């Protein structure tokens, strides 16, 4: 739709253009006079026509209203008159009333409708059929239809609508009046236009006259090019302004015209000047071109030289050998030939940098090489300084140049050298030597190309030096790597190296063997590829932790090899790069399963032992307590028996015969023995029961006391072999030990002259005591047995012995961490040894000290 509308617009535009444009064009070409007249006329006419049209429309509307009013009045009157006729249904009367409408010829028909809408009575104009009816039926009001006006009015009687009157009239009277009005308006228009024409033809001159005058002046100016002409001003309106501006414009044009003429003259002089300038420039250009040509020739020569130099360098560069000496020989030779120089040499600093050593010297005239010349640096400080400081030392007159005249007397003059060009050799930015070019004959100026070439030679030698150095370093590296590989390969421990993400980078043969792969297959794998998942997780967690903390760790963990669960000890350490960033982890681990098992077995055993000991201690204690209780309880009735026996002997001595007395004596003896036995048992069981009573004891006095208490018989000699130590011990127990051992020796002495020797030897952490006698001796089979309770080798009756002494000794010594044993030969004597630990080590000593202080 919008598109269509647009098209329509375009068409309208076209149409307008088609009609209006020619009219406008026509108007444009008219004279101003006619234009003005035309405008006035058009304005007048159009306003008149508009006024006429409005008047007509107004008239038409008014007429219509009037007609409606007139007809309505008629209908109203008829309705009123027809009331009775309708009320009493008198159609004839009604028709009579209606027929009064005949007076007005424009009335076409009239109908009277009764209440039920039927036609009750009618009036019809002569030219109208009696069946004609109005187009529609309204109760009241009017309507225009088909050039007629129909009016309806209700017939109301006493508030009751009895029917409707309908009146139809044609509009002829209205049209007649309108026609007459149009005629009048046309006539007025004609008269008005005539008047307008006459008036406008006079009035337009007021405006057109000055404009026409101005046009005449302009025409004159443009045709005759006479810019001094001016238009005359008649009035002060816009036209007056126009004339003023026109005159002003003419003045400007006049000025510009004269300026243009003078500018033209100036331009000509400028052109002449430029032409002479250009000629001069041209001559200069010609001179320049000649100079350039000359320069080009020089350049060409130089280029040739450079090409020669380049080819030499290229040839030198092609030398395949890596032998430094032969490279230098070739270099000096080629260098000398290329630059046409008598002597070329290469010198390198020695290790100390204190002297230069000639590696190769080529003399061209002799075509010979030599080497080994030496030159001390301290002899030529300025020269060395120059080498350090500059890229090249080019001396045209070597004898006078301050950098080289140090050599003048000793070297240059003797060799006939006049010019020198020395290039320092630098390796890693450090001066390592020099390439010397020495010219003989008349002095020589070193061109830039030659200097460049010499520098290139030096660079090449530097490169070769560097290469040889690198070769050496590489060799060293290879050897070191080989050593390292051998180490890795042969070490039984498993070694690996992982990157930051715990991905294997390398491992050693031993580990690869475990993993059942080749060493080079490990790269890119992870623990998940080799180990059960939970183990791999644990390993990787360790890795992550160690890399995060950056601290090496030693870990014991599980490991599965060939389906066998092992325990390994792993040492993992983070690997850092030069910037100290952690880039991976290095690990080494080994199997500790066997050791671990042993440890565990040992631990288990220890535990068992501990329990056993505990049990033993407990049962021992119970036994001791039992023995003590028994012995203690036995003592009382025994004493009673002894007392009773005494009483019996006293009271009944006269009644007993000898046999009876003898038996009583036997009884008393037995009671006494029994009492001794019980005392011994009590003593024995006392050991370890009562709290220890430690004190510092000087054994020398203690032994003397013990012997004095024993009171040995005269035929027995007791000897103390050496000075005895001071020990920390329980006095009573130690007394018991010595008394028992010495007492035994005395008791069992079978020789007429008995000899007992007491000795002591200091060992690393214990004392070893010995008590030796020359008694009957003991068979080897009894060595163990004698230390058991109630064991005597001789019958009771022979020696008054209970068989508890040695057991007591053993018990005491062992209680204090020592041991007791016997060495003996039958009939030659026995030696009893026992040891006592020195209480001078660590905590035990402190414990003893504490006990001593406590006075226990």
């Amino acid at each position, binding site marked *: 739709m919008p598109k269509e509308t647009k098209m329509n617009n375009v068409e309208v535009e076209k149409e307008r253009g088609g009609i209006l444009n020619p009219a406008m064009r026509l108007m444009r070409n008219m004279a101003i006079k006619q234009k003005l007249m035309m405008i006035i006329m058009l304005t007048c006419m159009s306003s008149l026509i508009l006024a006429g049209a409005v008047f007509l429309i107004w008239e038409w509307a008014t007429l219509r209203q009037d007609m409606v009013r007139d007809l309505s009045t008629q209908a109203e009157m008829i309705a009123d008159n027809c009331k*009775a006729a309708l009320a009493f*249904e008198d159609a004839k009367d009604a028709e009579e009333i209606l027929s009064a409408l005949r007076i007005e010829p424009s009335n076409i028909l009239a109908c009277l409708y009764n209440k039920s809408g039927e036609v009750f009575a009618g009036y019809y104009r002569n030219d109208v059929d009696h069946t004609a009816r109005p187009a529609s039926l309204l109760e009241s009001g009017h309507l225009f239809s088909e050039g007629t006006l129909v009016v309806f009015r209700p017939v109301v009687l*006493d508030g009751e609508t009895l029917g409707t009157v309908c009146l139809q009239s044609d509009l002829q009277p209205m049209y007649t009046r309108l026609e007459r009005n149009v005629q009048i308006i046309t006539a007025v228009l004609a008269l008005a236009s005539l008047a307008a024409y006459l008036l406008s033809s006079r009035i337009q001159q007021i405006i057109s006259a000055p404009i026409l005058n101005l046009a005449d002046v302009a025409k004159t100016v443009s045709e005759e090019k006479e810019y001094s002409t001016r238009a005359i001003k008649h009035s002060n309106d816009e036209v007056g302004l126009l004339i003023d501006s026109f005159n002003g414009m003419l003045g400007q044009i006049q000025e510009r015209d004269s300026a243009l003429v003078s500018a033209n003259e100036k331009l000509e002089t400028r052109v002449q000047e430029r032409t002479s300038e250009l000629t001069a420039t041209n001559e200069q250009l010609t001179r320049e071109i000649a100079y350039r040509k000359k320069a080009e020739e020089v350049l060409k020569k130089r280029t040739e030289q450079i090409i020669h130099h380049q080819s030499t360098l290229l040839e030198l560069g092609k030398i395949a050998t890596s032998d430094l000496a032969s490279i230098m020989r070739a270099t000096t030779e080629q260098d000398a030939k290329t630059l046409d120089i008598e002597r070329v040499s290469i010198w390198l600093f020695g290790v100390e940098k204190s002297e230069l050593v000639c590696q190769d010297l080529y003399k061209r005239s002799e075509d010979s090489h030599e080497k080994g010349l030496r030159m001390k640096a301290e002899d030529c400080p300025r020269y060395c300084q120059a080498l350090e400081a500059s890229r090249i030392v080019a001396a045209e007159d070597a004898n006078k140049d301050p950098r080289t005249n140090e050599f003048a007397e000793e070297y240059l003059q003797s060799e006939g050298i006049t010019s020198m060009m020395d290039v320092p050799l630098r390796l890693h930015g450090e001066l390592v030597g020099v390439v010397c070019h020495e010219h003989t004959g008349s002095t020589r100026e070193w061109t830039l190309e030659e200097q460049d070439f010499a520098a290139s030679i030096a660079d090449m030698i530097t490169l070769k030096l560097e290469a040889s150095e690198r070769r050496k370093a590489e060799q060293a590296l290879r050897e070191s790597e080989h050593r390292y590989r051998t180490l890795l390969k042969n070490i039984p421990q498993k070694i690996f190296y992982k990157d930051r993400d715990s991905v294997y980078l390398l491992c050693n043969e031993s580990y690869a063997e475990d993993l059942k792969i080749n060493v080079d297959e490990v790269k890119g794998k992870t623990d998940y590829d080799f180990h059960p998942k939970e183990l791999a997780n644990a390993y990787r967690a360790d890795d992550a932790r160690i890399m995060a903390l950056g601290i090496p760790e030693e870990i014991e963990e599980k490991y599965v090899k060939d389906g066998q669960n092992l325990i390994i000890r792993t040492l993992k350490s983070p690997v850092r790069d030069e910037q100290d960033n952690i880039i991976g982890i290095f690990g080494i681990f080994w199997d500790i399963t066997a050791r671990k098992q042993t440890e565990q077995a040992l631990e288990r055993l220890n535990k068992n032992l501990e329990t056993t000991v505990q049990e033993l201690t407990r049962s021992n204690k119970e036994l001791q307590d039992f023995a003590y209780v028994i012995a203690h309880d036995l003592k009382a009735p025994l004493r009673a028996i002894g007392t009773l026996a005494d009483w019996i002997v006293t009271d009944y001595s006269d009644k007993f015969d000898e046999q009876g007395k003898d038996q009583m004596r036997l009884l008393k003896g037995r009671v006494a023995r029994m009492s001794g036995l019980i005392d011994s048992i009590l003593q024995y069981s006392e050991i370890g029961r009562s709290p220890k009573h430690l004190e510092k004891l000087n054994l020398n006095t203690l032994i003397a006391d013990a012997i004095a208490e024993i009171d040995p018989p005269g035929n027995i000699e007791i000897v103390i072999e050496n000075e005895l130590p001071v020990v920390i011990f329980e006095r009573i127990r130690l007394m018991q030990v010595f008394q028992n051992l010495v007492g035994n020796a005395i008791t069992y002495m079978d020789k007429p002259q008995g000899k007992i020797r007491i000795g002591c030897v200091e060992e690393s952490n214990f004392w070893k005591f010995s008590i030796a006698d020359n008694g009957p001796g003991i068979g080897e089979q009894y060595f163990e047995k004698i230390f058991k309770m109630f064991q005597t080798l001789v019958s009771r009756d022979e020696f008054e012995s209970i068989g508890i002494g040695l057991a007591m000794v053993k018990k005491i010594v062992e209680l204090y961490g020592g041991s007791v044993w016997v060495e003996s030969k039958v009939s030659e004597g026995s030696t009893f040894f026992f040891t006592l630990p020195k209480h001078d080590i660590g905590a035990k000593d402190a414990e003893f000290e504490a006990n001593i202080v406590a006075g226990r």
Partner: protein
Amino acid sequence: MRIRAYGLIIFALSLLVLPTVALAQEGSVQSREYQIKAAFLYNFIKFIDWPKEKERPADSNEPIAIGIIGEDPFGDSFEPLREKQVKGRNVIIKRFEGFEQLNESDEHDEKQHPKIETIRKCHVLFICLSEKMYIQQIIDSIQGYGVLTVGDMEGFLETGGIINFLTEEKKIRFEFNLDSAERSKLTIRSKLLRLAKRVIRQKDA
């Protein structure tokens, strides 16, 4: 929708109206005739002016009374008109016994008879055929009280009645006695007079 709704309403209304129309058509020629006459009686009121006290009584709600004396031939012809107002007032129908019975039932002085008083207060008095013998007496007793006397018998006007119905070409027409009307102080509008078949006027003669 609205059109259909209107259609329905019209149909329903026509159903209500049809039976009454049918009933009316069924009625006898006589009842049809008196239905028209009843309507005409109403219409007469509209075209006739009564003296002041009856036209505009003190009590504006006082109905207009139509009296019927004698044997009533209208039957229920007034039924359709019952609700109708005329001149803004209700209309009531008052029926009276025959003139003879009126006098018989009461021995009072006939001029002072209370029933006669009532009749005198009526606006219209329709005198039935049965009272043909007493027309003169009836008219005399109400003369001057502004009662419009209507009848439907020959010679009614001549005996002093004001309006008489007659039938012409099966149509109900009427005639006036203007003198009688004047005597009863009644004015008949010209619109009504135009329609009269015959107008008696002594003065003209």
